[in-house]
């Protein structure tokens, strides 16, 4: 019950954020001073009558606040309007591109976290040995590699060693889809792997030093139980926080990786939309990605309230603590 009310509180905190974010997206795009009509017409010439008709059709003659509300309300119903250039339904356009991006984000997060947990725990229990050093160097390289560079290298390597396999371009079947997103997901997971490994390692080292681990050892529990049930479970809370923050970075990283692998995802749609000032597309994608990010954050909040009962009971003090911790961690999560 208290868990449920915690979930509701978190969800309620989310609404004002979403309102402000959507307003930011909408109004900042209008700041650019590019006239939508000229985007729609492109190189073509048109009479005033046609222009007026377009203005009415896209509600451009209404005050901008009204336009915002109209957009927001229809977006809530799932209707994102039609784009300026090809007059396609934006919702359908996005839906057709979602599988790639969502697949990349989910798969890379899962793979990156799983590998990071293994590496981090291993480095912590073999602290200051060659295993730890090797993992450190590996992690350092992955940290400094921008995902698009890794993508280029992987693509070069695969072209050299597996010239018969194709990893890029469109796909027809689910098998092909899985084959297409697997390699980019691995690439995308590298940055996350690097960061999360560090967090897991330092969290585990801290936990292994704590008093309750001494108690667990004095009880004569086997090493694996101590490491996983007592140390890792306790160390996993900051890990979840950082994973949820870093999920945002994989979302924007997906855009980059898609473009290197020429995958038909949201990234290409977004970048082209920005270049062409095709606002209905840009604002819809930005809004959806922000919502995705917030939902991931909410999901993780709920998971760690499950793990650590203190968070849901004293949500205020725990929030302050997590905020402090986030401030330290946040920076590390914020790069492409």
């Amino acid at each position, binding site marked *: 019950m208290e868990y449920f009310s915690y979930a509701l509180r978190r969800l309620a905190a989310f609404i004002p954020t979403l309102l402000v974010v959507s307003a930011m997206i909408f109004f900042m795009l209008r700041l650019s001073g590019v006239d939508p009509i000229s985007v729609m017409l492109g190189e073509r010439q048109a009479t005033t009558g046609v222009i007026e008709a377009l203005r009415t059709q896209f509600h451009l003659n209404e005050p901008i606040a009204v336009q915002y509300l109209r957009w927001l309300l229809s977006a809530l119903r799932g209707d994102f309007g039609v784009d300026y250039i090809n007059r396609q339904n934006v919702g359908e356009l996005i839906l057709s591109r979602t599988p790639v991006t969502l697949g990349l984000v989910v798969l890379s997060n899962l793979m990156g976290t799983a590998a990071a947990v293994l590496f981090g725990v291993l480095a912590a229990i073999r602290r200051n040995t060659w295993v730890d050093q090797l993992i450190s160097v590996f992690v350092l390289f992955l940290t400094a590699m921008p995902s698009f560079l890794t993508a280029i290298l992987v693509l070069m390597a695969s072209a050299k060693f597996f010239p018969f396999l194709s990893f890029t371009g469109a796909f027809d079947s689910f098998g092909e889809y899985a084959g297409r997103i697997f390699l980019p997901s691995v690439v995308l997971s590298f940055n996350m792997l690097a960061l999360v490994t560090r967090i897991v390692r330092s969290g585990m080292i801290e936990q292994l030093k*704590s*008093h*309750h681990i*001494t*108690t*667990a*050892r*004095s*009880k*004569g*529990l*086997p*090493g694996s*139980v101590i490491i996983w*049930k*007592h140390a890792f*479970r*306790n160390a996993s809370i900051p890990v979840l926080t950082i994973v949820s923050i870093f999920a945002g970075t994989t979302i924007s990283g997906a855009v980059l990786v898609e473009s290197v692998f020429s995958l038909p995802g949201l990234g290409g749609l977004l970048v082209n939309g920005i270049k062409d000032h095709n606002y209905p597309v840009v604002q819809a994608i930005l809004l959806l990605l922000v919502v995705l990010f917030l939902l991931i954050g909410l999901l993780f909040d709920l998971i760690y309230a499950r*793990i*650590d*009962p*203190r968070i849901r009971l004293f949500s205020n003090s725990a929030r302050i603590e997590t905020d402090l911790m986030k401030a330290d961690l946040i920076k590390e999560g914020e790069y492409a």
Partner: protein
Amino acid sequence: MRTVQIPYTMFSEDRRSSQGGLGGASEGAQRLNELCPPELECLLLDIQGLRVDLMTARGVGYAVRGVDLEVKPGEVLGVVGESGCGKSVMAKAIVRLHDAGRTRYSGRILFSGRDVFAMREKELEAFRGGETGMIFQDPQSALNPILPVGEQIAETLRVKRGFSWKQARQETCELLEAVEIFPAEARYAQYPFEMSGGMLQRVMIAMAVSCKPKLLIADEPTTALDVTIQAQILDLLRRLNRQLGMSILLITHNFGVVAEICDRVAVMYAGRVVECGGVVDVFDAPAHPYTQALLNCVPKSGGGKNVLRSIPGTLPDLYQKFDQCLFAERCPHAGDACGAGAPKREGRGEGHVVYCSL
């Protein structure tokens, strides 16, 4: 900390005749003699020449510098000393809890005749928790903060005694009732942050005795608790000692605690035992100048002067190796003999030994 802290409940001048803790202690000694006649050699724990060196940021710390100590079955042995005298380090060394790479042990620890330092990892696991139980100073941090307390006890039962979750839960509730935590069913699911320090120490005790160990090592179990709770916890320990016939090694800096429940007491100073003997003998006729000084510091409730006394001087440097008596520079009786070699071991009556060159 230079002085030994004693709560107000402790000694009155005529402590022998009082009905307080000491009465219990001598009774215990009597029972002990029946259980384990002194002429028969039967030791539960036999520590011989134990040295523990710890690697720290400042260099090698010589925490324990050659300790001989024995615990007989069913007895309560108190180990007293100032903070930093190595008593907790010694307690942890008994089950080899120190970080392996940072610690160097020498000497021998025999538990029921088996050498603890020769045990392999698996044996050690079975030994910890199975034959020994441990409780610590700060129960709040000694328990895993994000697991329900009952689960932490049940876990031990499952791992060490192969119980199913259901059996373990039932047994845990019985244990909780045995340490006077009611209602056990409801407390089972609570988290450490929902309980008080005294409660948590009871939980720790229940956890430590869950596998019926022969020896309970209690490392300052009452230091973090307030005085009334302290007395209850000591009563509980005493009861478990009687009911289960379980020996207790009680580490404390508090003579009052020793007086209340111990049969024998060992006084430690700077990593060595300076005096060891029956509680009554040591308190009545302290033979080592350090013990005398410590007992002098204990405030007396009947006395007219309410002056807190302390021992002048400071503890010797833990990072240096010493051979000679370490208390000499603070000792009012120190003479030439004190600086020359290790203090002599000397018997003062039955089971009462003192390490002093004088």
